[in-house]
C-alpha cells in the first residue's frame, strides 16, 4: 500500500478568495446591494413601509400568554405537509426505483410510464387533477390531496436519485451478497442500500428542499399553509411587500437550516469512514 501523503500546501490552505471571511464579505456586500435596491425602489414608488405591523402576524403576547400568529400556523401546516410528503415520496421513489431495476417487464413499464407522465406535466395541472378528479373519487380532503400530489410529483425525482445511488454500488457487491446465499431482498437491505443511502443523501436533501418550496402549490387548493396565510393577511392589510418578504424569509430560514444540518450529517458520516 502506498503511504498517503498530505496534499501540497497551496491545495490544503486554499487561497484568500476561498477563505471563509472573504465568502462572508462577498455575501454581505451582495445582500446589502440587494436591500438597498429594494428600499430605494420602494421609496421611488412611494411605498409606505409598515414593518411594525408585521410581528403580530408571527406572534402576539396577550395577558402574558404567547399566541402564535397566522404565519406560524401556516408554517406548521407547511412543515406537516412536507414531513408527510417526504415519507411518502421516499416510499414511492424506492418502489419505482426497484421496479425500474427489476427483471419484471411490466414492472419496468409501469415505472417508466409514471416517471414520464409526472415529469412532463406541470405541477399546477397535477394538483388540479388530484383535487378535482382524484380527490372526489378517493375521498381525500385538501390536506391529503396536497400531500399525495406533492409525493407523486417528487417521487419521480426521488426514483432517479435512488436508482442512481443503487447503481453506483459496484457489481461485485451483489456478487458477494449472492455468493454468501443472501436473497434479493436481503441483498438490498444488508448490502446494497446501506452503501447506496449515503450517496443518495446530498441529492435527497435537494429533494426535501424542493418539497418545502413546492409545497406552496397547495395554496391553490386553499390549504392553510404558509403561502395561503401570507396571501390572506395581504388581502386584509395590503402589506404586500412586508408580508411576502417575511414569507420568503421564513422559507429561506427553513431550507438553509436544513442544508446546513445535512452537510453536518454528511461530514459526520464521512469522518466515520
Amino acid at each position, binding site marked *: *500500500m502506498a503511504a498517503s501523503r498530505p496534499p501540497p500546501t497551496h491545495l490544503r490552505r486554499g487561497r484568500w478568495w476561498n477563505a471563509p471571511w472573504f465568502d462572508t464579505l462577498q455575501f454581505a456586500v451582495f445582500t446589502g446591494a440587494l436591500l438597498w435596491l429594494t428600499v430605494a425602489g420602494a421609496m421611488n414608488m412611494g411605498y409606505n413601509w409598515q414593518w411594525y405591523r408585521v410581528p403580530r402576524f408571527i406572534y402576539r403576547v396577550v395577558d402574558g400568554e404567547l399566541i402564535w400568529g397566522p404565519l406560524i400556523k401556516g408554517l406548521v401546516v407547511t412543515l406537516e405537509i412536507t414531513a408527510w410528503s417526504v415519507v411518502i415520496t421516499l416510499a414511492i421513489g424506492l418502489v419505482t426505483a426497484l421496479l425500474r431495476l427489476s427483471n419484471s417487464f411490466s414492472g419496468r413499464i409501469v415505472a417508466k410510464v409514471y416517471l414520464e407522465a409526472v415529469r412532463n406535466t406541470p405541477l399546477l395541472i397535477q394538483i388540479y387533477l388530484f383535487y378535482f378528479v382524484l380527490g372526489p373519487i378517493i375521498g381525500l380532503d385538501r390536506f391529503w390531496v396536497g400531500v399525495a400530489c406533492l409525493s407523486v410529483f417528487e417521487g419521480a425525482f426521488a426514483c432517479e436519485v435512488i436508482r442512481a445511488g443503487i447503481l453506483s454500488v*459496484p457489481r*461485485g*457487491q451483489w*456478487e*458477494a*451478497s*449472492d*455468493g*454468501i*446465499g*443472501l*436473497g434479493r431482498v*436481503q441483498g438490498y437491505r*444488508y*448490502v446494497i442500500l*446501506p*452503501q447506496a443511502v449515503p450517496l443518495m443523501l446530498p441529492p435527497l436533501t435537494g429533494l426535501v428542499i424542493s418539497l418545502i418550496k413546492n409545497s406552496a402549490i397547495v395554496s391553490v387548493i386553499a390549504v392553510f399553509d404558509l403561502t395561503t396565510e401570507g396571501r390572506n393577511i395581504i388581502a386584509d392589510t395590503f402589506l404586500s411587500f412586508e408580508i411576502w418578504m417575511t414569507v420568503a424569509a421564513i422559507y429561506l430560514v427553513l431550507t438553509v437550516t436544513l442544508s446546513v444540518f445535512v452537510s453536518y450529517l454528511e461530514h459526520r458520516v464521512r469522518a466515520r*469512514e
Partner: protein
Amino acid sequence: MKDNVVIELEGVNKWFGDFHVLKDIDLKVRERERVVVCGPSGSGKSTVIRCINRLEEHQEGRIVVDGQELDDDTRNVAAVRREVGMVFQQFNLFPHLTVIENCMLGPTRARGMSKAEARDRAMEYLARVRIPEQAEKYPGQLSGGQQQRVAIARSLCMQPKVMLFDEPTSALDPEMIKEVLDVMIDLAQSGMTMIVVTHEMGFARTVADQMVFMDEGRIVETAPPERFFANPESERTKLFLSQILSH
C-alpha cells in the same frame, strides 16, 4: 479412490450475445478434490466457475452441484449458493461492515443462525486465516492480503461443501501473495473441495489433484499435475506453460 462427485458439468455451452464463451465443457469434481484451472486471458475460466454458483447462466448442458441441478428454479440456486463459497479477485468485502460483521452476515441472515453462534464461528475462521485481531476493523483499514483472507473466512463461515476461487492473488502486491496462498494450502490440506483459477503454478503443484487447461472457451487438457507440467499432451498447453513459467 476419492469420494462421490460434488460438481458435474456436462456439455455446458454459454454465449454472451453472439460470442460463444464456453464450448462443450465437461468437468467432474469429487469430494475433497482440488482442481486448478488455468489458461490465457479471456479463455472463459471465470465464466466457468461463475456458472457453478449461478452468477452467470449457461444456455446448454447440465450443471449439477451437490445433487442439485442448476436451472431456473430460484430455490435451487439459493440452496446451491449456500453450499458453494466464492472468493473473488477483487475481494468484494462489504465496506460498510466490520470484518466480523462481514463474516456474520451470511450465517445469520441466510442460515438463520443466532448472533452469538455466528460470532463464535466467525472468530474461529478468522483465526484460521490468521487475522483474529482485525475482527473489529473495517475492510478499508486492511491490506489487500488481509482483505482477501477475510473474504476467505467470510465464505468459510457458511461452511460450504465447495470453495471457488477466481484468481484470488492476482490483485495483490507480490509480498502479500504468499500469506493468501498459505491459507489456501491449509484449507486444501483440511480436505476442502476446491476449484481454483490461478496462475500460481507453485501453488498448483502443491495442492492440485487435477489441472485443467482452458483455451478459447474449451477445456483443452485435464491431467494430474505431475503429467501436466512434465509432459503435457497439447501444443497449446506447452506454449502456455512455457510462457507462464518463464516469468
